[in-house]
């Protein structure tokens, strides 16, 4: 059984192929501990990423729980120090860099470095796009633009993220999207608008279909669309699935 080779994070995000998913399900039936780990992973992905800590990696048949948790604590502490140091250095060296908040800054592991903590009166909206229909995406872009215009006209602060996930990734795929120029225009006009692509979806397309996804230039990438969506909701963002 090659369960170790399957990314359980991808399983939790629903990004595996049917075959791989069936394999995981079968393994879970035979191995309650694994099932428990996957269940925990699902919950922890939601909770622990908020704190920017390492989600525990599934490690089947492990007898070294104590050792692992010590490592996690140590790693967490180290990350915290690095984060504090980096924050201190950046604050010192880059005064007045408000525009750095334009993007959800994502490190290679998909953890946000610029949490969306903003002025209390800022409206923050996350659109979770999972629909491949270009008309649906086009209508979404219309609505987003109308909102951006209205908030700007009223002088009310607004931040919008469009997270493209699963079939919704088509909006940000250079070869498939019919909205590339529109996206470029909107992203150019509005600093408070971000397009985010799900890396798990990109990886799945590579593994299952041999497709190397090329994103439109304005797209950011997050490790897991689902985790990103959960994190944003816990940070108080409005959430709309399209």
């Amino acid at each position, binding site marked *: 059984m090659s369960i170790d080779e399957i990314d359980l994070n991808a399983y939790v995000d629903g990004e595996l192929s049917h075959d791989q998913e069936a394999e995981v399900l079968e393994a879970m039936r035979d191995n309650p501990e694994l099932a428990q780990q996957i269940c925990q992973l699902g919950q922890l992905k939601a909770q622990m990423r908020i704190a920017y800590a390492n989600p525990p990696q599934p490690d089947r048949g492990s007898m070294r729980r104590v050792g692992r948790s010590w490592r996690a604590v140590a790693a967490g502490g180290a990350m915290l120090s690095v984060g504090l140091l980096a924050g201190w250095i950046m604050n010192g060296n880059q005064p007045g860099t408000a525009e750095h908040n334009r993007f959800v800054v994502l490190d290679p592991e998909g953890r946000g470095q610029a949490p969306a903590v903003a002025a209390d009166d800022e*409206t923050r*909206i996350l659109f979770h796009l999972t629909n491949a229909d270009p008309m*649906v995406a086009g*209508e979404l872009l*219309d*609505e987003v633009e*109308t*909102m951006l215009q*209205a908030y700007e006209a009223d002088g009310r602060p607004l931040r919008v993220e469009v997270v493209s996930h699963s079939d919704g990734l088509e909006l940000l795929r250079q070869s498939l999207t019919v909205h590339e120029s529109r996206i470029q225009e909107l992203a150019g006009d509005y600093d408070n608008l971000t397009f985010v692509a799900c890396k798990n979806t990109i990886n799945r397309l590579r593994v299952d279909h041999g497709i190397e996804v090329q994103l439109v230039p304005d797209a950011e990438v997050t490790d897991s669309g689902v985790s990103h969506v959960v994190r944003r909701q816990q940070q108080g963002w*409005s*959430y*709309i*699935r*399209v």
Partner: protein
Amino acid sequence: MRLRRLLTYFAGLVGLMASTGAAQAAPEDPLQRVVYHIDAADPERQRAALRIVRNHLNDVGDEHLDIRVVIQGNGVSMLVLPDSDGAAADALPGHADDRVQVGIEDLKIRGVTFHVCRNSLTRRNVDALNRLYDVGPDDLVDSGLAEIVRLQGDGYTYIKP
């Protein structure tokens, strides 16, 4: 003796903390506020959404719920009367058949409020007041998505069935 007094004091303290905690945990307003988002084109999914709202009312009780249903995007076909007069040949197919009408009517009687997106109707050239089932001017909002954002800001929980 002193120990007993100490224990009594301790028990009282725990009891006080527990009652304070309980008072904080008990919500002053037991009303559940929920916004349902319907944007699916598929009539099966549209009917399923109405069913889910009905089940929600059955489970929690009408008097405990403040439910808003925002109909937007392709979901507006749920309200379009089938074969309505004056509809162009290429008009949006209407899914507001008898089953849907009864479902909507039932929910309205039980206190559910519907908000219909004007932008979505305009994009599809739907005459809101003549081709839709039981939609008046008060039922329309300029933007369904903006309405959902507003409701979430007011504490409504978002559900997309």
